[in-house]
């Protein structure tokens, strides 16, 4: 097998190194060897024809749920990593809300071992902020980091105790780990199941006000001012949240933020249009059109750094239910690129900023390798056909789960090749399911 991959004719978009134009990319021994306009093809190279396609650094997703251990019927590290590959993602950060919660070195080691066996996307474990994510005692951050964790989170639930949150921010500074926070005030959420507003009122569903998210972000930004450290706000979904983060960044606070493709593309009206469709039930909930607009602007201007999918596989058992009873979340790895590319076509986002938000920005938020095609960088590459149209057939997704609101929808933009560490892990039409 050749150790050299020669990608020719494609439009290389690498915001990290300022490249946007037709270039040839040479990968050798797991590294980017060269990106240039004219390169002699090495004799032993495996050639990939990328004419008409985009060649970008492999995408990095700061927020996925791989469900292993404990809920392997929804997803495993291997199937999740395969879904990542099919979507152009070469690195994913796996949230710790597995069963048991990843709050110790052995949980982290298990995730890494499964990822190594799969040999697909790079999987970076995220450790818990609190033991069992119960919000009571700090987890062992030093041990988690030594085992391979790149960030800390109690994702799936907020850290309701402000005193614990303060100590977590402080203690994590010793290890330079970012805290990635799931922001919702559970008292304001109550039994809410969708965004509070006229649509929830019409549907008779209990609402979750935007302020449930905003008051927690404001709280944590205030704490960050006290403690320093690194705060990353997961799945931002409201105008007020955007305003708070924008203000904090202006004041120089060390905060980064992410937004999901669905919070950029869908609104609470889609819950109504789908007829209580549970593939439109997620947390945070789909917000108003005004909130969506604010998130799009914030992503475009860099207030929100990264696009992250919050890939949340659930089986039919948890989704073919009353809206009130269904679990939150959707799968996102395999649809993220086309869903976000549609925003480019609608004029909400530039092409380069889109690529940046999937590559360099997430890499820098968590200090991960990759996110660039600079010489010497890891040979993690996505090759994308921005024109290819396809209809989402949940049965053909590589994820084990099928909970996607894009079921049956026609999308434009598709990953054709994904290369991790100089090895093609996904090739359109070739990879087995």
């Amino acid at each position, binding site marked *: 097998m050749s150790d050299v991959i020669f990608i020719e004719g494609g439009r290389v978009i690498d915001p990290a190194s300022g490249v946007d134009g037709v270039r040839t990319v040479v990968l050798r021994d797991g590294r980017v060897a060269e990106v240039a306009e004219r390169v002699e093809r090495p004799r032993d190279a495996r050639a990939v024809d990328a004419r008409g396609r985009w060649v970008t650094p492999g995408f990095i997703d700061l927020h996925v749920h791989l469900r292993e251990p404990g809920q392997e019927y929804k997803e495993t590290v291997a199937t999740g990593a395969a879904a990542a590959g099919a979507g152009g993602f070469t690195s994913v950060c796996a949230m710790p809300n597995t069963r048991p919660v990843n709050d110790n070195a052995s949980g982290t080691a298990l995730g890494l071992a499964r990822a190594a066996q799969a040999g697909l996307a790079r999987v970076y474990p995220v450790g818990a902020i609190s033991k069992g994510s119960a919000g009571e005692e700090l987890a062992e951050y030093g041990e988690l980091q030594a085992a391979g964790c790149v960030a800390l989170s109690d994702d799936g639930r907020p850290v309701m105790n402000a005193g614990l949150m303060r100590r977590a921010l402080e203690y994590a500074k010793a290890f330079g780990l970012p805290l990635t926070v799931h922001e919702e005030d559970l008292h304001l959420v109550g039994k809410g199941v969708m965004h509070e507003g006229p649509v929830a009122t*019409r*549907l*008779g569903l209990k609402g979750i006000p935007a302020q449930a998210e905003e008051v927690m972000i404001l709280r944590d930004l205030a704490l960050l001012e006290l403690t320093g450290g690194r705060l990353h706000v997961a799945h931002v979904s409201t105008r007020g949240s955007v305003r708070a983060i924008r203000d904090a960044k202006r004041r120089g606070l060390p905060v980064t933020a992410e937004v999901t493709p669905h919070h950029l593309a869908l609104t609470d009206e889609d819950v109504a249009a789908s*007829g*209580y469709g549970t593939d439109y039930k997620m947390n945070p909930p789909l917000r108003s059109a005004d909130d969506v607009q604010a998130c799009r602007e914030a992503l475009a201007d860099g207030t929100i750094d990264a696009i992250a999918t919050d890939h949340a596989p659930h089986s039919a058992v948890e989704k*073919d*239910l009353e809206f*009130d009873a269904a679990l939150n979340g959707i799968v996102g790895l395999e649809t993220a690129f086309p869903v976000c590319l549609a925003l480019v076509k609608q004029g909400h986002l530039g092409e380069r900023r889109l690529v940046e938000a999937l590559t360099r920005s997430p890499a820098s938020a968590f200090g991960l390798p990759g996110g660039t095609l600079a010489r010497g960088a890891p040979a993690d590459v996505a090759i994308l056909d921005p024109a290819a149209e396809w209809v989402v057939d949940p049965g053909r997704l590589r994820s084990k789960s099928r909970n996607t609101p894009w079921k049956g929808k026609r999308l434009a933009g598709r990953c054709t090749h994904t290369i991790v560490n100089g090895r093609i892990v996904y090739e359109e039409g070739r990879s087995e399911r």
Partner: protein
Amino acid sequence: MIGRHKHCIALADYSREEILEVLDLAVSMKEVLRRPIKKVPSLRGRSIVNLFFEASTRTRSSFEIAAKTLSADLLNWTASASSVTKGETLIDTARNLEAMRPDVLVIRHAAGGAPRLVAEHVGCAVVSAGDGAHEHPSQGLLDCFTLREKLGTLEGKTVAIVGDISHSRVARSDLHSMPKLGAKMRLCGPPTMIPAGVEALGATVHYDLREAVEGADAIVMLRIQHERIGDPLIPGTREYSKFWGLNAKKAAEWLKPSCVILHPGPVNRGVELSPEVADGPHSVILDQVQNGVAVRMAILYLLAGGTESEAKA
């Protein structure tokens, strides 16, 4: 069929004509209920299942009397929590009942949207007998029927709905039907019980009871559920009744003499309505109960595949 609809789930989807189709047929149905022998063979051989996931004596009985008056066979399936705790999903339960080949499935469920989910998975007609805080279409229709009967028309009339609007499916079904018949709607209650953006449904919002009921042609008083107290939507029933309850004194001072008072029942006497008002001249609460049977007969009849001529036979 009711107009274009195979099901009766949400009046939001019903046009004025479709609402009138039910109301007009209910007039004939009410006439049947006044006969000495209250039984017609219109739905003989048809079967109807009452599938109730929430306790409800009056709505269930109303559908039962409606079905029996039309000679349909009726099965009461009280799901309580039993099948749910055994792990059977709503879709499973509905498919199991569907296998018994009913013509109509009447469903009451605590989750908004549940009847719609059932309708997507069964072949028979589905009638919602109330789903969460979404809709209670037969109640909305019987309220319209009662107002038409008492006021002659809803055209140009003002209807005030008072109480816990946020949790009320009755309020939503009234809001989705009465304006289509020409009524103007006012909503009233403590601000904690007014849901976000409800003005979008075409109503004005009032926190002051007097402002809401003065000059109104009809008032729908909603039941205050005890579990809402300390929710914390209101501090208690004593204060609620003082500010949002109707008693004889307020009724005498504020209401038009012709104003009618509706209540979906059961009434919390002394909370939203004092006994003198509940039993007084404005009250049409018992008429609503009888009209409920007539309206439900019309719904079942249209959805179970009866024909107009059979009905009048």
